[in-house]
């Protein structure tokens, strides 16, 4: 399951931010490493919500700063 979540999350990030898949490592920070602006990060969260059919409250979204954060959070929500 977690593998599946990880590959989906990475695919969304590659698509949304236009970055190379090799850059999308677990500790890559959306803003500092992947060049996302503040609206990009909001849009990423919106894409995660759509892909995994769940809603991510703002207070949770604020703590999702890296690829790893997203995978851990979503895996936890889906398990």
């Amino acid at each position, binding site marked *: 399951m977690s593998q599946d979540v990880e590959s989906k999350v990475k695919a969304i990030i590659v698509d949304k931010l236009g970055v190379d898949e090799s850059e999308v490592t677990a500790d890559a920070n959306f803003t500092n490493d992947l060049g996302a*602006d503040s*609206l990009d990060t*909001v*849009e990423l969260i*919106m894409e995660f919500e759509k892909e995994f059919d769940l809603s991510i409250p703002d207070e949770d979204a604020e703590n999702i700063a890296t690829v790893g954060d997203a995978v851990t959070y979503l895996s936890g929500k889906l398990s």
Partner: protein
Amino acid sequence: MSLSLEGKTCLVTGGSRGIGKAIALKLADFGADVAITYARSADAAEEVKAEIEKKGCKAKAIQADAVSFERAEEVLAEIVDDWGKIDVIVNNAGITKDNLILRMSEEQWDDVITTNLKSVFNYSKAAAKPMMRNRGGSIINISSVVGISGNAGQSNYSASKAGIIGFTKSYAKELASRNIRANVVAPGYILTDMTDELNEKVLEGIKAETPLGRAGEADEVADAVVFLSSDMSSYITGEVLRVDGGMAM
């Protein structure tokens, strides 16, 4: 580019009466599907809905207190669920509770600020995500010339309307990169139920201060809103468009 609003989905808060009603009907004249919200005037809202439908456009009349943050989310969700998207929000809902500052109660202050200003935040915020998904949108916030120049006896109303201008410019800057535009329409003295309450002497004074020498019609405010809703204004954002007969220049 054209003024046509064919295929666009619009929401007008406080759309059952006055300027909001004129805006809702005119948006439909230009082909838009229009939802209105209303606080209490259910019969009037249903009449506006029927008039919009008569023009061959889809319409909704939704009861919603503009002050409620949660309700704004629900209203936007209903429109997006049923009509697929939202293109234009016109934040028009507003009240007055005039008094001299020396006599103004805390309640009069809070009611006007909350109804007029927080409601703009509520609906603009609720619209942001659907508009980002839709790759664009137009927010039009109805302010007032007194938000620009102030008015004795209307400190609460003026503050709320000035607040709308600051909010709109910030919103325009935050969301410009997603092709979401935000503009203000600032009406001057417009004939509505709200201005019916003013006495003759005040009205004469207002006319004397208006270079065009007459009161405006709600329809003339609606014309400006159509322009800002349409693709004709595609390069205009963060602007304050006075519709005031020259009063605040």
